[in-house]
């Protein structure tokens, strides 16, 4: 007999932004993410409550998935920022802090939500239009022909992650590697539409960071005593299986199979496998790769016929290997391998990194696949380094599409704030002039608060009226920021000697002076999108009237 439990009614929260609990949670999230922002940001230790692994990080791509909230309203903001991070890889913390402080400022200003939304929309389009202009004061053209700009861009990403614990030379080394790996993924002279290759990251714990390297081709984990086929004739034909060759009946899936007791299914599958091996050997294949397990009998058969065998490749390496060799993955063992399915390998060697033995597969001709070996002293820092390198690669790829960057270190934000203030208010429907002015003020304050979030040691941030750049005055007056000299602005293109005069917009142009190249660069595409995501999400959050939850 089943017992009926009365369904409890849904819970409805009216005006979630007036709810103190939700506001507290939003503020907590802003402070949590804000404290991670920038090169001197604080780290967070993430673990679950039953004693799982501890992750130490300050990057949004790790942090945001972890801080799931019990409050759907908070999750709404979190997921939309997370989507931006997954798509663009960078500026996640910027988007989160900006969005949350927009909501907070709007709440504090006491303006009607509709008016704030309207002016936010207007201001955001104003800013994006300005950023897209050629003469924008915070945009820097990237010279893709020289490595210097790319390294500077990569370095800004790498140095903004303090959990990597890199020294200055190590930071430069990693940035250079990131650029080199990126350049290797750009195909040289392919006619028609160009598609970028892939970088595979391999991590080795316990070696110094400076042992990290980039190699063209693929590095594949292998057994210590891997058999290497003799380099009789290059290139080596290769065959790649995506089906399991373990000799089991896993392909059949679940369900009941009825067999005659005298039928030995194992040996039948094995003979099928050996037939396959026989064909492959006849076709002169020298490298035999399987995504999954290979039956030991087949392995022995292959190696005794001079074939190098790699098993358990893993699904992540399948795509790069297909690109590298041009092989078609074979998905079944019940039919003969088509001759078109074979790929080719240009070079084969065994390389050792620390405790790892790896097989180095090189392409026959030109290929856009490379492997970056990342070394670090402990696993926590190594994991963060991996995330950081992925981010750097993403940013570099974005730069290929739009070869410009934004001034980093908070200077873009302050500059945009100054620009928004200077613009003549354009009145829209449903928003009075005073309302617009106050909303614009809140918008600028939010932008400036993002820039201020870069400072974590109690220093004071100031904005100069001449160039609208961001300056910091440390609390203990002893700060020497790494890389950027003592008296520099956030992005490092100005030093303290200049006098501040005018307070008009547009601020004095520094692009004329070619010698001043900002030291800190942000990805243009990522930041532009982050700005839009932040404003749209904040507007949506301001627009939410009810939160209805089914509590059953």
């Amino acid at each position, binding site marked *: 007999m089943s017992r009926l439990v009365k369904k409890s009614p849904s819970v409805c929260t009216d005006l979630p932004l007036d709810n103190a609990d939700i506001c507290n949670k939003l503020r907590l*999230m802003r*402070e*949590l993410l804000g*404290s991670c922002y920038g090169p*001197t940001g*604080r*780290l*967070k*230790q*993430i*673990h*679950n*409550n*039953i004693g799982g692994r*501890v992750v*130490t990080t300050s990057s949004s791509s790790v942090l945001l998935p*972890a*801080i*799931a*909230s*019990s409050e759907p309203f*908070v999750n709404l903001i979190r997921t939309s920022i997370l989507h931006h991070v997954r798509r663009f890889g960078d500026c996640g913390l910027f988007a989160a802090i900006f969005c949350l402080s927009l909501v907070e400022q709007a709440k504090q200003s006491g303006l009607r939500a509709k008016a704030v939304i309207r002016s936010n929309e207007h201001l955001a389009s104003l800013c994006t239009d300005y950023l897209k202009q050629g003469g924008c004061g915070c945009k820097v053209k990237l010279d893709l022909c020289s490595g210097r700009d790319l390294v500077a861009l990569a370095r800004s990403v790498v140095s903004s992650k*303090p959990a990597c*614990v890199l020294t200055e030379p190590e930071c430069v080394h990693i940035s250079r590697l990131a650029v080199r790996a990126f350049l290797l993924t750009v195909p040289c002279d392919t006619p028609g539409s160009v598609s970028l290759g892939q970088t595979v990251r391999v991590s080795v*714990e*316990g070696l110094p960071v400076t042992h990290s390297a980039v190699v063209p081709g693929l590095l594949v984990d292998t057994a*210590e*005593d891997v058999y290497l086929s003799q380099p009789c004739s290059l290139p080596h034909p290769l065959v790649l299986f995506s089906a*399991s060759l*373990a*000799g*089991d*009946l896993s392909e059949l899936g679940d369900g*009941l*199979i*009825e*067999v*005659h*007791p*005298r039928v030995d299914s194992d040996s039948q599958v094995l003979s099928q496998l050996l037939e396959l091996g026989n064909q492959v050997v006849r076709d002169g294949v020298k490298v035999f790769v399987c995504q999954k*397990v290979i*039956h*030991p*009998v087949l392995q*022995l058969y292959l190696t005794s016929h001079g074939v190098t065998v790699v098993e358990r490749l893993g699904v992540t390496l399948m795509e790069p290997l297909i690109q590298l060799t041009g092989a078609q993955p074979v998905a079944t063992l019940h039919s003969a391998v088509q001759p078109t399915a074979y790929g080719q390998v240009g070079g084969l060697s065994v390389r050792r990194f620390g405790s790892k033995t790896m097989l180095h597969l090189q392409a026959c001709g030109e290929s856009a696949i490379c492997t970056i070996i990342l070394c670090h*002293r*402990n*696993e*926590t*820092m190594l994991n963060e380094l991996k995330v950081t390198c992925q981010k750097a690669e993403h940013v570099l790829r974005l730069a290929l599409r739009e070869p410009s960057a934004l001034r980093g270190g908070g200077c873009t934000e302050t500059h945009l704030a100054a620009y928004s203030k200077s613009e003549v208010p354009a009145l829209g429907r449903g928003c009075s002039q005073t309302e617009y002015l106050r909303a614009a003020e809140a918008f600028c304050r939010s932008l400036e608060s993002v820039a201020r979030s870069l400072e*974590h*040691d*109690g220093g004071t941030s100031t904005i100069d009226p001449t160039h609208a750049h961001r300056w910091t005055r440390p*609390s*203990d*007056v*002893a*700060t*020497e920021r*790494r890389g950027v000299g003592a008296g520099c602005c956030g992005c490092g293109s100005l030093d303290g000697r200049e006098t501040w005069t005018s307070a008009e917009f547009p601020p004095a142009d520094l692009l004329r002076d070619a010698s001043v190249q900002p030291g800190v660069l942000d990805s243009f595409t990522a930041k532009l999108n982050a700005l839009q995501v932040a404003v749209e999400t904040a507007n949506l959050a301001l627009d939410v009237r009810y939160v209805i939850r089914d509590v059953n």
Partner: protein
Amino acid sequence: MSAKLTNFLLSAVQIMLGSAVLNSRQHIGLQRVSALAETVRSSVGPNKKYKFIQDDTSGESVLVCSCFRIIESLEPTCAVGQLVLETVQAHHKVYRSGSGCLLLLAGAWSRAALDCLHRGISVTNIISFMSEGMDICLDVCKESTVLFEDLAVTGRRTAAPRGVEKTFTEAPQGSRHMQRATKSDDMTPNMSVRRKTKLSRHFCETTLHLDEPDVPGVSHAAEMLSHGCEGSMKLVVEAFQLQSKKNQELRNPMFDISKVMTCVLPGLPEGRACVLHGCVVLLSHEQVSVAHQIKERRLKVAFINGDLTHTYRHLGFKKPPGVQPVSERSVPSGSSKEDEWLEKVVEVFLSLEVNLILTTGLACESLIQTCCRHRILLVERVNSPALRLIANSSGALPVTYPTQLSEHCVGTGVQIFIWTDLSSYGRKPAAAVNISTGGGVGLVTAVITSCVDGKLQALEDQFWACAHRLHHALKDRVLLPGAGATEMLCIHHLQKAAERHSQADADRAQETKTGTAAGLHRGHVLQLMADGLIDYITTVTVNAGRFSAVEARTVVSRQLQNFHRDQIMAGKFSQLALEAEGDASADKTPAARIYDNLSVKQEAWRKALDLVFLVLQTDAEVITGTGRKGEDNLMLL
């Protein structure tokens, strides 16, 4: 799911409201590192104090000796504790020594960082100044290295004076006993009753004569690296000499520790420890008789990677979930599947005429019995790298299933020797048998023996620590003056740099009135780092046993003053710990010195500082998942 947040810094709510500077001076994470480091204080240095670690829930307790074992057995559960453990484990995996140095310095430098926070120095500055201090220390290390060859040469000339031995024999072994004491440990007394050394006629001693100086001076240099574990180091040197006899490369000797195995054997006196070619396995009673029949002959041998049971399938093989045998009429089941399999396997063995089968996994009892009847020795649970090496040298191919075996998979030329008869019964090992290829693979096994069960782990750890020290010394080709000399030099340089900064800043401040606190702060941080190293030396000196904490501090500071006065001349390193230990015998002959590994020291220091940096920069802990309620300093997101 919801996420909870605890603040590292004392008051969670206040911090989150933004009064960060005021509260960050009480950094809980750094305090935890420092507290964890305190647990190993008495075990740092060559003279170790033992600790009992008891588990309240299970009632089990364990007596531990090395710093690594202490921190491992403590199983710290807090997030910082896990980070500490992870760092120490990563270090231990590669170097097998220096964990104590790492932990103690991490603790000392955590306190230094806390002190800096108290003085209002920003986190960014603490990190950049401390990195600067580390650079100074690493430079000192680089400059004060001694070439390994030079040491080896002096060793040969002085021909190992007796005085050395005397200083070294104040080792901790022997006097203290270490015992793994579990509540229900009825094994130890029983075994000690049974284990009387029986001198049977099968008793076969394989002592090796190791007096030929293969690589001159290595044994002498190794002695200087033993750090109080002479017994273990002697074994290591034997292992090295056995190995290098094979590769004959005198110019650039290497010690390949991947080809060194250990075999622990309880119930024998420590003096029986030795090093043998090949590997050593323990055999049961019935296998011993087979071993006696086939010993000292050149055998045909097969190698199996995996278990020898009829149900065993290779890794990654999935059994189909629902296979059901169906037939029209019931098949007469004369013999079971297992019997069929057994018959087939034995047939394979017999047709190939193998006498010895080595497997990495287990074998079913009936197969072992059958093999014994056919005079085939089946050895289970062989270490898989050892199996691979022996297989390589005998020209065999290890296979997964016995049915795979064919003529070309079988190796030849392997010999077995019965090392010692343990004369026990039942499933307990009855004899230790040495399986040797005699060929040039360089696989050697150290047999570590002790009457006290609980001590075996410590002895094995000591052996590996010594082996890694020698390995890294030969790899680095350089050594550092040990017993605190390098640290002294680092302290000296750090203090000089600190003075310089403070002085320069004072001058500048007088001139311009706008002098920043940068120099002052930098000087302060460097001084605190030096204090951390002083703390380390003092601890080692105290642990050496002759001085109390206060006296040790006085000795260290007196040494430092002398240092400053003499302005360090090369070769005038005073070896503090040695002096503390020694008596009249420590008459400063160059041979009496202690040396440290360069790479081990550098990595330990750097990892200690990494740990401090990671924790120093962390300001909050995010706990995911629904959790306990009622903790005040938690904030729910």
